[in-house]
């Protein structure tokens, strides 16, 4: 096995992306590949586990590589959206791998921690990277997690909102701990999903 054949993703193109091609959707049953990006420890896995399993585990479990989870969300207009979620590791050594998970994704959730300005910097890095290399019509959400820790807040909602507006993202503050805004976040993404035009 050669060195080059098994290396993680490169931006130079020619990399494989994880993509399930049978993304056949009809107008009522949609399928969406979604990726979560952000600094380590901001709560990406907690957001996903709250959404998929309704659980919150306060002990931090460092994600390795990326975890895959799926969840079906039923909307009021009687459509269902099946989310196929890539929960990526925030650790620096995995940064080069991110394209593997966000290529072909229809939506991205970029997460920061409202108590850490540093994590917002990193979120902005991810936004830039997605704008450069992600697909054009990707739905992007900026999420300030740990909203329950408002007394320790260092990132103001206004700043984040303005940044999100400038970058054509929608913004929401969540708390995986209290479940605040978690379902709303995914519902909002589902609503923004382009509906396929039914065959005439």
């Amino acid at each position, binding site marked *: *096995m*050669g*060195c*080059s*054949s*098994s*290396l*993680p*993703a*490169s*931006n*130079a193109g*020619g*990399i*494989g*992306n*994880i*993509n*399930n091609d049978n993304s056949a959707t009809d107008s009522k049953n949609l399928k969406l590949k979604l990726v979560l990006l952000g*600094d*380590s*420890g901001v709560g990406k*896995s907690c957001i996903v*586990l709250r959404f998929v399993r309704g659980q919150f585990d306060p*002990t*931090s*479990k*460092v*994600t*390795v*590589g*990326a*975890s*895959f*989870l799926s969840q079906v969300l039923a909307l009021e207009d009687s459509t269902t959206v099946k989310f196929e979620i890539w*929960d990526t*590791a*925030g*650790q*620096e*050594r*995995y*940064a*080069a*791998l991110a394209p*593997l998970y966000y290529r072909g994704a229809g939506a991205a959730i970029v997460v920061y921690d409202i*108590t*850490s300005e*540093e*994590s917002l*910097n*990193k979120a*902005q*890095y991810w936004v*830039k*990277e997605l704008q450069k290399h992600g697909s054009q019509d990707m739905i992007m959400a900026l999420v300030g997690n740990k909203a329950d*820790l408002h007394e320790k807040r260092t990132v103001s909602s206004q700043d984040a909102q303005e940044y999100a507006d400038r970058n054509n993202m929608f913004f929401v503050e969540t708390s995986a701990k209290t479940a605040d805004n978690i379902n709303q976040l995914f519902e909002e993404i589902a609503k923004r999903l382009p509906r396929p035009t039914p065959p005439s």
Partner: protein
Amino acid sequence: MDPDPSPDPAPPPPPAADEATTALDALSLRAAADLPPDFAAPEIDEDDDDEGYATAASRGGSSTAAWKEEMEGLEEDAYGDAGPPSPSSSGYAGERGSSLASSGIEEEPDAATPPHAPGAEDWARGKKHADEDDASASWRKRKKHFFILSNSGKPIYSRYGDEHKLAGFSATLQAIVSFVENSADHIKFVRAGKHQIVFLVKGPIYLVCISCTEESFEGLRGQLELMYGQMLLILTKSVNRCFEKNPKFDMAPLLGGTDAVFLSLIRAFSWNPATFLHAYTCLPLAQPTRQAASAVLQDIADSGVLFALLMCEHKVISLVGAQKATLHPDDILLLANFILSSESFRTSESFSPICLPRYNSMAFLYAYVHFFDENTYVTLLTPRSDAFYDLKDSRARIQDVLLKSNVLLEVQRSLHENVLRVEDVPVDLSSQPTSPPAQSSEMAIGGPAGLWHFIYKSVNLDQYVSSEFALPIKSPKEQKRLYKAYQKFYASMHDKATGPHRTQFRRDEDYVLFCWITQDFELYAAFHPLADKTQAIKTCNRVCQWIRDVENKVFVYGESTLAWQYHHCWGDM
């Protein structure tokens, strides 16, 4: 330099404590003079149960553009187009400390929990004693330290304390290495009183163990090799190129969030014989059950998976490699340790880059990991970065077969029931109608002739089996001590200068240890200290016969040719 104390003309690491002090003083570094005196006096055993653990999420989080470039640039490098290094091109310049700040010190959950339940406790969560540094009395009293540092003296990993605060200490260690290297020599170890400081130099990365556990130099060096292997499993050897481009490269952030992995490996040094035997162990299973599992894994391997492993905790249920690919036992150990100590694998299926250092230390493979239950998991390894959905399908097929053939149930049953007990070693009825009258009643505890424990390693299969611990060595502390004794025994049996030896019988106040090495197997056995030598040797013969009788249950056989060779060897005995 040789580990033996024969005089060396070059300026070697001096064996005596006072000389070591002189040598360290000569380096005139801040921490140097403190070293030997501070490392005396009562030590803190790493497994004493009064330790608290920080539940920190991770220490990393900082941006290391050089690494990212390394990963992205490698593909071009392969075509001979190594671009100029531009480590500042990253869009963000993160600093450390962005990880969870909500961590606190927690008491260890249960003092009585043996280290045998990997992943079961919360101790694996984070760094131990992150508040300590080389100025803390408690830090200096730790019995066994492990350090990883760069050849510019930058700390990369420390078992205890915060790496950042140990920058001065790391610089000292680096200075010791370069002091010796400046005289065109290589440092192996320094003895300072009760302490042994063992060095392992791997290109730009230095690994150091400071220990007063009386373990052998070879044993500690083997542990450092495994620490290095664990690091490679996470990063590959291509991390060396970061140092080529920037000798002052700060590598510590690249290992962010992996404290639990190293901590778990260090724990394994005192309970997992695989760390010194360089063999793996299997979960005992009836042959048809294992065959059912192997058949489906083989199927999967034929469809483009490089390695497929089904494991229960640290024990192999079945493993299959594509074509001629073989897995080294050390890679199995490091892979299992990585998976079992990273809690996130249990939460959901994952797809992660992993390097098998003994297979190819330069390249990443992609590992699909899925836990079927609390302790049984499948790992599918492939060089293809886009294989996730294929592997997910493969896993579904494997799961189907495992459920239909009751493999998962049998695995759970085996985990609780199928242990080899020394009490079950068959007694040779023909030559010994009754137990020898000379035996005291104490001797009746355990197996025949006062047998307390044994490890049997099949040389051809790279596999071992070990018995359950008999009553006299039930406590984790006793077990740890026995493993240390085995480790020393192993080192002396395999000593290149005086060995290898065929048999060794050693009696001390704790046990009688007996080791027997042939072309085909290695047997390590521990008996009651008053055990009779002749009876003990007879018992060892019976253990070997017994293992042969149950070999289909306790070992995994690979391809038919391998099995044939193996049986052929048995025939010669």
